[in-house]
């Protein structure tokens, strides 16, 4: 028995144990990155939220231009920010598509409806002439009518708008003025007297929240183009949490089955492989955390499959090791020869799977991309841990001279 190697081995095990705890346990409170698995983002299918692809379509009156798309993007961003969710994503895809991802909104369908509303505000006189539009609006704020207590939206016009508003109201005393939103008459109050201060109210609304939504839309401005929903996926928070729990349970069960199988079948090397697998899992989780990979349900499957691949790599190596032992080599030279010969097969098989993973990442969208990236990262990590870690630890175990019975290595 060689003490230094035993100590080294013990050091590795303790080190792995510490990192494992850091990975899953909030040992130090108030440190945001501990456990570091917190840094891995959860996809919408695990957290709940909405993913929507909007496309601008030409209408006879308004064609889509690069300029109007820019404006539309800015308006959508304004509206998204008003939802107040963490880390919303708004991105332009191609020249006409806008992808929006919102996590943790309570009513995703309502959110989508508010995104695509044109929110074109008009004031028309009784003879149908448009006198003011949302463009002259300075701000819009929800509030409660001080007299009646009913929710309403308070409008305030820019100076030029206020001037027009004053003139129009003065000219229309006793007549109605129509307030239209997206071509529909919301209200048609009768003008009692001229309004010089550029302020107006729209009411009544069912709730303060409804008034709030309209105010947001009016503040963010009217969309310059017509947007249509091409694709929409919403997941409620309960279903997301349920999926997350189930995949964690399923993942753990699968992993434990693999760990038991490896020890049962391969004995000492199996034990080493299990240590290597734990290291593999930690390495992969760290890469996910470092790259801020978004974990989706297919991503979980990709991760578990890459784990099975890491197991396969170990199996290839151990089968080789057995053969070398059978051919009468000593343990140490058998380990060296086994690795050397297994490496070619391991490399080729990993490269081909990597090709499939990268192509999924490149061509896929949303969750499929997630699957491609977790699979690819997993394949690379598997190559590293199985070849570097398993070999090193196996040599270390052999070097301790603790185990003399080669049967425990599979001979």
């Amino acid at each position: 028995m060689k003490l230094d190697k035993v100590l080294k081995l013990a050091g590795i095990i303790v080190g792995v144990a510490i990192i494992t705890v850091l990975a899953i346990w909030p040992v130090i409170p108030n440190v945001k990155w501990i456990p570091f698995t917190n840094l891995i983002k959860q996809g919408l299918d695990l957290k709940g939220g909405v993913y929507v692809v909007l496309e601008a379509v030409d209408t006879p009156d308004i064609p889509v231009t690069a300029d109007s798309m820019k404006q539309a993007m800015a308006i959508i961003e304004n509206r998204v920010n008003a939802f107040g969710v963490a880390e919303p994503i708004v991105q332009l895809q191609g020249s006409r598509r806008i992808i929006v991802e919102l996590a943790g909104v309570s009513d995703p369908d309502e959110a989508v409806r508010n995104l695509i509303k044109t929110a074109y505000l008009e004031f028309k006189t009784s003879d149908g002439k448009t006198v003011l539009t949302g463009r002259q609006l300075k701000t819009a704020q929800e509030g409660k009518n001080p007299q009646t207590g009913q929710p309403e939206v308070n409008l305030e016009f820019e100076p030029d708008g206020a001037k027009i508003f004053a003139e129009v109201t003065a000219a229309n005393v006793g007549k109605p003025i129509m307030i239209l939103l997206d071509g529909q008459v919301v209200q048609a109050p009768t003008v009692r007297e001229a309004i010089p201060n550029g302020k107006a109210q729209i009411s009544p609304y069912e709730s303060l929240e409804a008034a709030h939504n309209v105010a947001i839309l009016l503040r963010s401005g009217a969309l310059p183009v017509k947007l249509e929903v091409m694709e929409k996926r919403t997941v409620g928070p309960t279903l997301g949490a349920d999926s997350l729990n189930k995949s964690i349970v399923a993942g753990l069960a699968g992993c434990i089955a693999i760990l038991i199988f490896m020890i049962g079948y391969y004995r000492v090397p199996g034990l080493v492989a299990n240590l290597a697998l734990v290291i593999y899992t930690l390495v992969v989780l760290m890469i996910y955390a470092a790259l801020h990979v978004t974990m989706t349900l297919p991503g979980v499957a990709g991760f578990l499959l890459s784990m099975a691949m890491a197991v396969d790599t170990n199996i290839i190596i151990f089968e080789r090791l057995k053969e070398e032992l059978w051919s009468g080599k000593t343990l140490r030279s058998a380990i060296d020869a086994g690795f050397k010969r297994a490496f070619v097969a391991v490399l080729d098989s990993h490269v081909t799977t990597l090709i499939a993973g990268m192509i999924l990442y490149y061509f896929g969208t949303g969750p499929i991309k997630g699957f491609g990236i977790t699979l690819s990262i997993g394949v690379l990590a598997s190559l590293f841990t199985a070849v570097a870690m398993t070999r090193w630890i196996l040599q270390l175990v052999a070097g301790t001279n603790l185990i003399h019975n080669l049967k425990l290595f599979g001979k």
Partner: protein
Amino acid sequence: MSLRESMPFHFIKLRKIWYTISVLIILPGIISLFLQGLNLGIDFSGGSLLDLKFNQPTSIEQVRSVLDEFGLEGSSIQRSNETDYLVRTRELTEDENTNVVKELSDKLGGVTVQRSERVGPVMGKELIYKAFQALAVASVLIVIYVAWRFELKQGLAAIIAMLHDALVVLGVFSIFQIEVGSDFVAAVLTIIGFSLMDTIVIFDRVRENSLNKKKGEALEDIINRSMWQTMTRSINTVLAVLFVLVALLLLGGTTMRSLVLALLIGTLSGAYSSICNASPLWFDFKRMETKGKPKTAKA
């Protein structure tokens, strides 16, 4: 005595049997693909999906009667349990969607939308196009890699084994009309990757054994020996993958089920094809080359 020494049967000599088994498994699937095709989910065909949880036990008839009000008679209504339903309809606009949910909630005592998806027909077409593009690019790159590392004929044999697995999975999903979505594409590509991995481990062993072959050993015997030598690995690896997949199938959420099912079938098929198709096919290709006359190779 271990399998690698006993070698209970000769893989290459029995290859006609393996080809026949493959054909027997694939043929019904292909016929089904032609006759009824795949049950394309809304990801491909476009449409809307609602995953609903009612507050009280609800019957299919109740759900259907509400949908009928909106002219959605052709919708598919799938009941998971007393309160959970999956409803698939033609593509609904946001307003239609809101009205349907409101009506369901009002008439049937409250409902929560757990998941709602809407896919326009354009997106579905793009997905199909991208799926085929991905498959084609992956196949070409893999053939190039295998041809570079091994030889072209092995690359071709590996791709045929790969297509075999894709067809088996497509066939099973067509026969049982299991719905396929975008994750199915991911499943098929992963299956291909796995099948290839198995094939390559065996090819690698053949390559090595050919370099130090025994005197007078024929190619078919080298291949056979290589296959038996890698047999334990092939079995153990499939077992490891199966552990994970069965756990996901039994304990994972319903949203992942068709992905996992496809992977499960594909893994089994991949293990079979890499042993029973890829190397025997390569052997037949080699024979054509050396004898210079075409031989019939089924599969």
